[in-house]
């Protein structure tokens, strides 16, 4: 079972997690939180309280764009999609985290594989 990552570490990775998910397809808030939890085996979790301030912040920066859209059942959801500016942030963010893991690995023997 994957150990849940403490909030201070996971908070910094939130932007990368969201950008990576949205690079695949537009998603709404609940689905973003669900997929992050599922794909990381519960190591990274987002509650409503941690997700939406981050999403709104990213929206303000122009990285993501939210739009109300009805699903097939007629339920309105606010779907977030990556903007071209957000897509450009993805590679540098990944490189930053890679460098961070490498630095940590060389210091404390923490492998990111």
């Amino acid at each position: 079972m994957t150990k849940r990552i403490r909030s201070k570490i996971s908070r910094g990775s939130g932007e990368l997690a969201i950008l990576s998910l949205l690079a695949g397809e537009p998603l709404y808030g609940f689905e973003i939180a669900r997929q992050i939890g599922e794909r990381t085996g519960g190591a990274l979790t987002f509650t409503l309280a941690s997700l939406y301030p981050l999403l709104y912040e990213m929206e303000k920066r122009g990285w993501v764009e939210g739009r109300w859209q009805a699903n097939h059942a007629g339920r309105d959801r606010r779907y977030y999609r990556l903007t071209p500016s957000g897509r450009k942030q993805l590679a540098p963010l990944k490189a930053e985290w890679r460098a961070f893991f490498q630095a940590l690995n060389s210091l404390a023997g923490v492998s990111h594989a």
Partner: protein
Amino acid sequence: MPDGNKPDPKNPDWTKLVRERMGRLDLPPGDQENIIRELAAHLQETYEAARSQQIKEEEAVELAMQEVKDWNVLAAKIQRAKSEEEIMNRRTKSLWLPGLLTFLGASASLMLIQFAGLQPRIEWIAHTGVTVYWHWLASLPFFGALGAYLSWRSRGSTWARLGAGLSPALVMLIVMCILLPWGLAIDGFASFRLVMFGVCLTNWVLFPALALTLGAIPFLREPNIPAAQAQG
């Protein structure tokens, strides 16, 4: 916040709950309604996901409620995330800063022209002799272009570009509008003051504004550059 008013487990009204607990944010009403709607939808989905796993209604409500520990903290975070600070920064970058640089540049240009000994010409406007700095006026299209370019570079709107380019003339207009009532109050020569005001307005505001606009025009027509390029 005390959990005194938990929603009805059978038919929870999440919109009402979010509206009550979030309180009033300092945001446009439409924005706040959208936030309430979105958070309520999230709670509803959490509730339904729990119910689909055969969790009892009361426990499903409890699970949804656990999504937010402190509504006041959440409201403050959302307020900060949605605040206009970024817009203010953008306005600073696209209007105030280019405008200031344009104004300082145009002022320095006038000082240099005077320092270099390039003489103004006396022109007669409305039977009044006015010293017109033609050399300075000739340099102003460059500064108009500079202000509009800097504003365009920072993704300023057409009005912001025009405002930044015209800043030297606008500053003079403000100064004169402040000085006129003073002059009228001190010596009371209303008609003479008004004529002088009109003449100075032409010389120090209208002529410079025309010259500045001439330089700014090419950048007023340019479409906005993409955000990423502007940030880079």
